[in-house]
């Protein structure tokens, strides 16, 4: 079963002081991940960005696995980022597309129990965005990020659905598409009212929304 999971963190909405406090970040990152920061990222990335980068990856993993195992418990410190590779260039100019330009994304390998997943993340001025996939190849993953004018939950929900459907309509031009939820509350894509096997993940935080979905070809 293929799945997808994404998450977005609006950097203007995070509490930098709190994020740097040990009692806060230790509920998100493990000791090994703190060591990863100290050894690999302390000179290139503010610590608060590292913490929220890992949060966005871990939340994406949770969303990915929740579709396969509904009822799974989100346990951030048990989702372990084993490898994280920084991009050569962090200048972001594209906010929607298929696959990723490896030169501008953080690439990660993530472990949760018996699962190994792969991540791609973008750190921009105002947001951190992550997507995970079951293989280290994102050619079949489509994604998008958009700022919105409201942080009201219903508005976020409506906007991200419209945003994702616009992209999906380019793939399924003759179908009437809708995004619904299954009995577990997980987003599903409906084509002419019938669920189709295109896993979709929606995210919103403050004034940003994002989606990802995976196609079989």
């Amino acid at each position: 079963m293929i799945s997808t999971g994404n998450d977005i963190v609006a950097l203007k909405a995070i509490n930098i002081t709190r994020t740097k406090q040990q009692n806060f970040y230790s509920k998100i990152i493990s000791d090994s991940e703190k060591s990863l920061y100290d050894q690999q990222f302390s000179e290139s990335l503010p610590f608060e960005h590292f913490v929220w980068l890992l949060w966005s990856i871990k939340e994406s993993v949770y969303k990915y696995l929740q579709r396969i195992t509904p009822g799974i418990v989100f346990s951030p410190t048990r989702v372990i980022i084993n490898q994280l590779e920084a991009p050569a260039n962090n200048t972001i100019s594209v906010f929607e597309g298929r696959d990723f330009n490896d030169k501008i994304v953080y690439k990660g390998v993530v472990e949760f129990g018996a699962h190994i997943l792969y991540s791609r993340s973008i750190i921009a001025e105002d947001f951190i965005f992550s997507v995970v996939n079951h293989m280290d190849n994102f050619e079949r993953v489509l994604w998008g990020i958009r700022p919105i004018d409201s942080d009201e939950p219903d508005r976020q929900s409506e906007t991200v659905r419209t945003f994702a459907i616009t992209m999906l309509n380019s793939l399924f031009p003759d179908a009437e598409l809708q995004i619904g939820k299954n009995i577990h509350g997980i987003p599903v894509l409906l084509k002419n009212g019938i669920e189709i096997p295109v896993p979709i993940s929606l995210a919103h935080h403050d004034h940003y929304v994002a989606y990802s979905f995976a196609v079989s070809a």
Partner: protein
Amino acid sequence: MTREETLNELKKVIAPYTINKEMLAGINDQTDLIRDLKINSANLVDIIIDAEAKYDIEIDYDSADKMTNVGSCLDVITEKINQK
């Protein structure tokens, strides 16, 4: 502290992270923090940290993972208060 008193304090902890004030006033054990109160998942750690400060307790990882609805929050908080 009775469960009702703990619940009233919990409402104050949750209040800054939800705009759904009407539902917050009437929360019960089944109220889901994300689905019903529309709390962003990015704020769940804030709620745990604020609860630790409010009740002067320490919430370990396993307990924190359970805190997805009001009932489980109250169970964890009550357990930690009783362990003091």
